[in-house]
């Protein structure tokens, strides 16, 4: 006997779109994150150079990674909601 989810989930026609979009956005963020790690390793002195409002690259890039995560998350949610609404029967708007 297979185990079932707590709340039965109906067919979600938007799930394929959401999965694909999620993977792409993950890859975009992973690239930015890898850039941070890479600069630290390959060009560490650059992290100490002032780049914006007296702040060095380490601080700007670090804050940037946090802010970009939120921006991408909001974009992702907007796209998912839009697709769920377009494909009637999706369970996206719930919650």
């Amino acid at each position, binding site marked *: 006997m297979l185990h079932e989810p707590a709340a039965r989930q109906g067919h979600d026609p938007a799930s394929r779109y959401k999965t694909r979009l999620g993977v792409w956005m993950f890859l975009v963020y992973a690239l930015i994150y890898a850039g941070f790690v890479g600069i630290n390793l390959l060009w560490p002195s650059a992290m100490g150079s002032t780049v914006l409002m007296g702040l060095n690259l380490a601080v700007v890039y670090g804050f940037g990674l946090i802010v970009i*995560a939120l921006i991408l998350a909001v974009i992702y949610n907007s796209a998912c909601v839009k697709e769920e609404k377009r494909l009637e029967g999706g369970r996206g708007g719930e919650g």
Partner: protein
Amino acid sequence: MDWMPVIIFIAFVGAVLGMSFYFARKARSAAGYYAAGGNIHWSVNGIAFAGDYLSAASFLGICGMIATAGYDGFLYSIGYLAGWIVALFVVAEPMKRLGKYTFTDALDARFNSKGIQLAAAISTLVVSIFYLIPQMVGAGVLVTPLLGLPHAVGVIMVGGIVIIIVATAGMTSTTYVQFIKGGLLVVFSTIVVVAVLVRGLTTEPDQGGKVPFHKYATVLATEADGALVPEDPAWQVQGTKDVAGLTLVRATRDGRDYWFKKSVKDGKTILDECQYQSVGTEGETIINGAPASPENPLRQVGNLESVEGRKGSEAATGSVGPFDFLAKIGSPDTLVKTWKMVKFEDQGRKLTLYAPSYTSGQKILKPGQKFKVEGTPLERLDFISLMLALFLGTAALPHILIRYYTVATPAAARKSTIVAIAAIGFFYILTLFMGLGAMTSAVVNPADNNMSAPLLARSFGTLLFAVISAIAFATVLGTVSGLIVAASGAVAHDLMDRFMGLGMTDRSKVMAGKIAAFAVGIVAIILGILFQGVNVTFLVGLAFAVAASANLPSILMLLFWKKTTAKGIVASILVGIVVSIGIILFSPDLYELYGRQRSEAPIPFANPGLFSIPASFLTLVVVSLMTQKSGNAGSNPGGHVE
């Protein structure tokens, strides 16, 4: 004793316990106990995510590490937050579709494999216990300055309260404890940061006038015929000792023992006064040349020697904006005084010495103080390994994954993750200001940096300290509750009900969960006492590595590779656990914890992720390809339940 922190603390704990008893009636079914009935609103769940995730490691550990190692502590903030991107984009909705109460449910949804049930339950227990250790250590750290109780008492108190929270109302009370704690943590951390910015920077911090700034002695000396002679004849050099790359000098003045760090600058020999604690064979303790007592503790440390090249009254900035605060600290002309701990024996006494060190602000505000990004290839690999584990660990933490089952739909799971990212991201930005605020305000306990954030709050008044400490305690309660729910679910639901096939009723499953919660709580108490004094963020970093190695490869491959088999998943989990823990146990950091030399460690790095995560992925692929004929292969990548 100051009673205000005690009263606020007791009121807070009383409110939490009252709430647990109130919700107890809602936790009589398994769905109520393990998943809060699956009906938590996504916005509440999002803040509860933050409350669950922002553990002692985030609040106490990261702030403490920033306070002593600068930007390197902030790397944890960046990595912990980045991990939520993996959770949102890849894991959130499929996990919600596939699971019921536990992470094991989701992994096993398409296989119904005894092997997966056992391996995933073991993994949940291992990761939860690894994660529990730093939380319990954090609890012990908190109660000493707050209530004047020993470390062990704090650990036992947290363990006892959490067992009551979890055993009465399971995930429902846990959710609301986490929701309240998450909200309060963000609000009051913001208040502390505003207070730091309003106070500004100075080279002689005095905790708002409460603790006079201590000026450590600097003695000029000359060296002739191998003898060290201070220019001030009041000092008599008694001997020197080379320890951990430092030359330490013991000198006396007015019959009192002092230790100095010797350095040579511009041809001059300079002795900088250290702090030290010396323990004799009978246990008698001397601190800085006088018997240890409540009136003679180790002094709190951390200050700027110069702010943009200015010293003394000229250096005081007054109120500063957030960017200006960072720019001034990060200036190449700013000098930060930090303290390095060394341990050695001298004249039959065990000494722990804290030697001053001066670092430019530019170096403090970029990676390199703790993680040697410009070091040897091995040190660089260690850095990559840490950043990889932090990035991939979040989406594999069982106590985070179970929160996807407390909301009604996959869309709600997604939205609650976004609320979590907003709250957690904002908090992590605050950690940089709190940590640097502590580093520059002479509030850091040199023997244990975990209390830096609450001690920073105390420099602004007892009320803020009391509230922040109560929130910090709630931080531990919230996270430990979540971990114990996850661990008890693994024992009662995954192992007893599913793996052993005991055919438990709904009621007995709840009872088994409560008993498991009690047992896990006892284990957590013991470990929390044993690991006293270790930086809690460091320990959580290791828990992330174990989670990322044991769980994430299985989750991702199950969702995206249709040839994944049950045996592949089992092998991947077990290899991930064994390789990651094996590397950790034989690493230099753990050898130091064992009381041995770091150089004796057979594995020269501390973070296992770079090796254990690929090993787990590779194992899954190889074993899955070898077991295709068994018919266990999944056929529904993406985790879509049709």
